[in-house]
């Protein structure tokens, strides 16, 4: 057991929390505020590292009770099989309820059309917002971090969305102290970002500290890939490669996990958490810059998608 006198938390004072402890405590506070103030919250869960960390924090926030939220996966139909397996195991293990909003369903029904560039990322918005409406979710947790992108840097922790799920960056509520305002009208909902203040490195350090398991594709492995727009994409049923795009076998890993058609792998020999952390610390590219095609579309690509209801 610890006592006040024994504790040495950091360089400032015995009671200063380390940055990881401070971020963890803040995120747990956010989860508990939502549990206390909303009727029907849901956690967006893609099987990527940020949503895995979110779930881990939620488990800690309510221990020894169960997480009082269900999970929602927006399934693009172009998922990495390892990630889907991980998702299903997590749901099973923690006795959670999983909702799936399927882009493929919308395409099959003719509601959504495949884009000429093959990316399904922008197509996620409609299934997501319709699912939120039909299930009457009033709070939707997202793993978005402000360090990812400059439009995200402007995002509040509690972000009100209107009945069309739209984000209006000019009409955001000021967020003062830790007094989060979750008031919303029927039909509106609040997007909640408990990892707002985390960086990519924080996420990895926390994964290492807590010993959190991740899908294997986050670690270096040999894979058949081809190059498109400067990124290594995985060859597969989703539609790649084209004839002029030769497939090669390379040692790669993923920094982010999303739709296979627009998430690129990076060359890497990092097979352990320590190696991944060292690699990220030395990298001169941001996570999204290295691996996401959709953000390169225009200077305001993220802002525009977020305005429409993207996470």
């Amino acid at each position: 057991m610890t006592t006040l006198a024994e504790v040495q938390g950091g360089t400032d004072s015995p009671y200063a929390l380390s940055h990881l402890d401070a971020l963890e405590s803040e995120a747990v506070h956010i989860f508990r505020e939502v549990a206390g103030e909303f009727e029907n919250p849901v956690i967006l869960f893609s099987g990527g590292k940020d949503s895995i960390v979110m779930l881990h924090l939620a488990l800690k926030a309510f221990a020894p009770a169960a997480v009082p939220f269900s999970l929602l996966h927006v399934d693009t139909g172009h998922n990495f099989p390892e990630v889907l397996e991980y998702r299903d195991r997590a749901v099973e293990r923690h006795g959670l309820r999983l909702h799936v909003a399927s882009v493929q369903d919308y395409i099959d029904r003719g509601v959504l059309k495949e884009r000429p560039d093959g990316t399904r990322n922008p197509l996620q918005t409609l299934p997501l917002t319709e699912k939120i409406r039909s299930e009457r979710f009033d709070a939707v947790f997202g793993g978005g971090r402000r360090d990812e992108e400059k439009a995200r840097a402007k995002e509040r922790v509690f972000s009100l969305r209107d009945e069309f799920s739209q984000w209006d960056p000019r009409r955001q509520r000021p967020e003062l102290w830790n007094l989060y305002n979750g008031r919303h009208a029927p039909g509106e909902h609040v997007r909640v970002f408990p990892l707002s203040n985390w960086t990519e490195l924080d996420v990895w350090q926390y994964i290492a500290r807590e010993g959190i398991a991740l899908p294997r594709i986050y670690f270096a492995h040999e894979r058949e890939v081809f190059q498109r727009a400067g990124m290594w994409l995985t060859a597969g049923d989703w539609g790649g490669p084209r004839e002029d795009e030769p497939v090669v076998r390379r040692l790669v890993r993923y920094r982010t996990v999303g739709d296979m058609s627009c998430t690129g792998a990076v060359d890497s020999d990092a097979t352990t958490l320590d190696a991944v952390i060292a690699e990220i610390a030395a990298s001169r590219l941001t996570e999204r810059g290295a691996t996401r095609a959709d953000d390169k579309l225009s200077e305001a690509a993220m802002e525009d998608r977020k305005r429409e209801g993207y996470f």
Partner: protein
Amino acid sequence: MTTTTEALAATATLLRFATAGSVDDGKSTLVGRLLHDSKSVLTDQLEAVERASASRGQDGPDLALLTDGLRAEREQGITIDVAYRYFATPRRRFILADTPGHVQYTRNMVTGASTAELTVILVDARNGVVEQTRRHAAIAALLRVPHVVLAVNKMDLVGYREPVFAAIAEEFTAYATELGIPEVTAIPISALAGDNVVEPSARMDWYGGPTVLEHLETVPVSHDLAHCHARLPVQYVIRPQSAEHPDYRGYAGQIAAGSFRVGEQVTVLPSGRTTTISGIDLLGEPVDVAWTTQSVTLLLADDIDVSRGDLIVPTKDAPPTTQDVEATVCHVADAALTVGHRVLLKHGTRTVKAIVKDIPSRLTLDDLSLHPHPGLLAANDIGRVKIRTAEPLPVDAYADSRRTGSFILIDPADGTTLTAGMVGESFAAPEPVKDAADDDGWDF
């Protein structure tokens, strides 16, 4: 390579700070310089800025484009909203609230300062202390930001002369002392040339103090628990009702101030019931002591009625409960706050109905004079208010506790956040304004 490997220390502490400065004081350049020289701007971000700058016909990369994230901001070339930035050095992790300098965005500086341990106030060495500088200092004092840095920028444009810096530092420090700011660190810099931001300046050998970054890395963040009133706002009651934990009943919350230990006698407010702490869970692990700002779950010896919104405090150190809250507020909404306004008040985890009974004064930030009975507070106004709440609230003075001395007012009709409130006296009311009993009207 040492920078990146040492920056990996997962036990480094976190400093939250905010920047403030007028439009052309070079705030974006300072932020850009801090991010750039601490190697927090990565190649693809710089390339994006270079591309965007070139497409606008600019000669070099415009570092403001790094921080202005919204389409409207880039179009107008100004910062509209607070943005949060992240960077690290071997000694610390930083969360920077990058706040706009325009007068009409005073509320955004309040937002940034509310969670900051330190504020950097920028002035242009050629202009010295101006109205906006005084306004920023007043807000830092009002929000009780523990540390204030005066960055005298553009020293390159005044020949790096010491007397210019000394005069500005002296004038500012005198004003800050008047506001009750305990400590000012003045640093002469050139954000553009990089003097004294990250690297010490060779052109100002008369200056013996720290660079901006060095100061940010070493400023002590106070965690003096001995003088803090312990407070735990109850967020959520954890009741597993499972076979493994049939009787577990824990009160979850983030400790807002001070520390709690097992065996301590506590009182639950507002009911006033008393019991002892039988256990503390720190995210699933039992501990015998916990302190601010840990998120914990308290287990109590007696089965008493405790729910979300209650405040758990040491019995020997309980705050008074009151239905009449007097506070200094900053009005953050576009529509005015008026006497008679029916609102919701969120304090800690409790939201209650309330009515604005009186607005005794409005503060003129430029000279700190008080305008008596203004009748309303418009957007960005700072003033004193008296609020009657529908239920008793245990409030501390903001001077004693930034967390349990603060509240927000919310519009019950549409949920808008109206007002940021700080309980108790502040410099804004050096002499209490007389409450005229017959003053039930107001003039616009």
